[in-house]
């Protein structure tokens, strides 16, 4: 039997996102996937899924969903007002949902994006090895597009038994600090064309703050602040770019490329946001301020490995918690 969720209201921009689509960049296909992979992966781990399982990515304003089945879900990410049958519910913890329940995810209080994971995962077909929605090409996720009111989302059967008792544990507050605050510190390593900029601009890039403009989306964040100048007029030819690459076009205003960015670009790349800090950017909204802080590539690499080890630790802790709950039954 097919288990489903009814989309009563779609929210501002809700898409299915998971693991990126690697292997097709030479065909011009962008990698995509969850903007805040930290929140998306933790939501999956909380419900016993593989960390890369597809989740619903919510931006700014969330959807209202009616469950046609019992389910186990978790909502992680920016702080959204969430209710289940009009009763407030917490984020960052496993949540049992009954058949007929209505989950409503309202406006975003802090941060910008949240992820809903469903035990068993969303039953959407992978396209080019990924379930992530690639809106520009109209593929992946739910029919290659953002959700609309009236959609019926198919779920896979959950692997965890639904229990009567509510879950009394979740992800600690200290892990969600990256979401708060209007001014965000984002660490970067030197980009390939860092040396192309004047010494004054290199200094300015780290000393000043940049505002996230309204022309910011899953493809890139356009920032506004002190203009950056190049020391040479040498024209660049297009080379690969990736999630977190900071390009500087002729205007001198930096653009941070995000999950749905194009595969190649021709603007000088002043810096690269370190992987561990991409979730900070993903949670920045128009009007927020970004200050860049320089780290070495060695440090960036060390932080990457540290984050991955942290994820493994979370997985073990969560599995342990589920075992304790099962034992207590």
């Amino acid at each position: 039997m097919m288990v489903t969720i009814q989309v009563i209201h779609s929210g501002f921009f809700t898409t299915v996102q998971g693991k990126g689509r690697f292997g097709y960049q030479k065909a011009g296909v962008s990698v995509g996937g969850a903007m805040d992979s930290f929140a998306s992966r933790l939501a999956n781990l909380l419900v016993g899924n593989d960390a890369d399982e597809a989740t619903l990515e919510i931006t700014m304003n969330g959807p209202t969903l009616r469950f046609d089945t019992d389910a186990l879900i978790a909502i992680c990410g920016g702080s959204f007002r969430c209710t289940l049958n009009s009763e407030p519910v917490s984020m960052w913890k496993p949540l049992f949902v009954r058949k007929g329940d209505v989950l409503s995810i309202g406006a975003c209080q802090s941060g910008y994006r949240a992820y809903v994971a469903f035990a068993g995962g969303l039953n959407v077909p992978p396209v080019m090895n990924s379930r992530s929605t690639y809106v520009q090409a109209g593929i992946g996720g739910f029919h290659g597009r953002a959700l609309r009111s009236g959609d019926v989302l198919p779920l896979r059967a959950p692997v965890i038994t639904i229990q009567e008792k509510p879950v009394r544990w979740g992800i600690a507050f200290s892990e969600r600090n990256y979401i708060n605050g209007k001014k965000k510190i984002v660490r970067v390593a030197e980009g390939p064309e860092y040396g192309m900029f004047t010494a004054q601009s290199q200094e300015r890039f780290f000393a000043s703050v940049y505002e996230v403009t309204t022309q910011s989306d899953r493809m890139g964040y356009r920032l506004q602040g002190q203009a950056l100048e190049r020391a040479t007029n040498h024209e660049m030819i297009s080379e690969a770019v990736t999630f977190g690459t900071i390009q500087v076009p002729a205007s001198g205003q930096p653009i941070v490329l995000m999950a749905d960015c194009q595969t190649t670009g021709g603007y000088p790349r002043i810096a690269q946001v370190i992987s561990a800090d991409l979730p900070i950017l993903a949670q920045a909204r128009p009007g927020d301020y970004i200050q860049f802080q320089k780290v070495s590539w060695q440090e960036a690499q060390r932080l990457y490995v540290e984050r991955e080890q942290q994820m493994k630790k979370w997985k073990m802790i969560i599995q342990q918690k589920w075992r304790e709950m099962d034992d207590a039954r």
Partner: protein
Amino acid sequence: MDYTMFPLSEWAVTIRFSTEVDEAVNEHVHRVTVFLEEQKKEGILDIVPTFSSVTVYYDPLVAGDYEEICKWLRTELKRVGHIKKAAARTVVIPVCYGGEFGPDLQEVARFHGISEEEVISIHSRESYRVYMIGFAPGFAYLGGLSPEIATPRRSTPRTHVPAGSVGIAGSQTGIYPLATPGGWQIIGRTPLALFRPHDPEPSLLRAGDIVQFRPITEEEYRMWDDGHNSSNT
């Protein structure tokens, strides 16, 4: 061939052979790409050729850290020199020039003071090299447009350019794989689908290919069926 290597991110390294567009360099880029793909090293996620560089995406926890990847690449790059050059594929792209499919053909002809037929004949006479795929799914950067028909972009971009539109922008020519806004001078349209999301190889064109345009009639265009449900919307 000499090269430099640098990190693009904690999961990507770029090998750069030149900072110029050059056919011989580009040829080498594709040999390196094909060769590295053949090694099927565990943890390599993606290999992306551009005009004169190759970027290798990897999972640092599986394939090793930056230093290890560079060491592996340096060893492999020494072996590429001995590999025979693969024969380039020639891909013929049927194009219905002018009329409703090529609304700017007249403008391109007027700009150069030649007839529309001459524009078509020059455009379909040359062979074009696919230097790289990028910018959009299935979008090919082609080299080889004759200066006789090079034309500046439209002063006002169109809000909707249908998929398959063949255009000219400065000294470039190319095909829009998806319907997008765009400022290229549109001289025709192909019924072929450039982007085939459900195929094992989603881009009709590959870097290193040779492209030839073949004029077809409007009737041929409408009868065309390449089994990819090419969207002419």
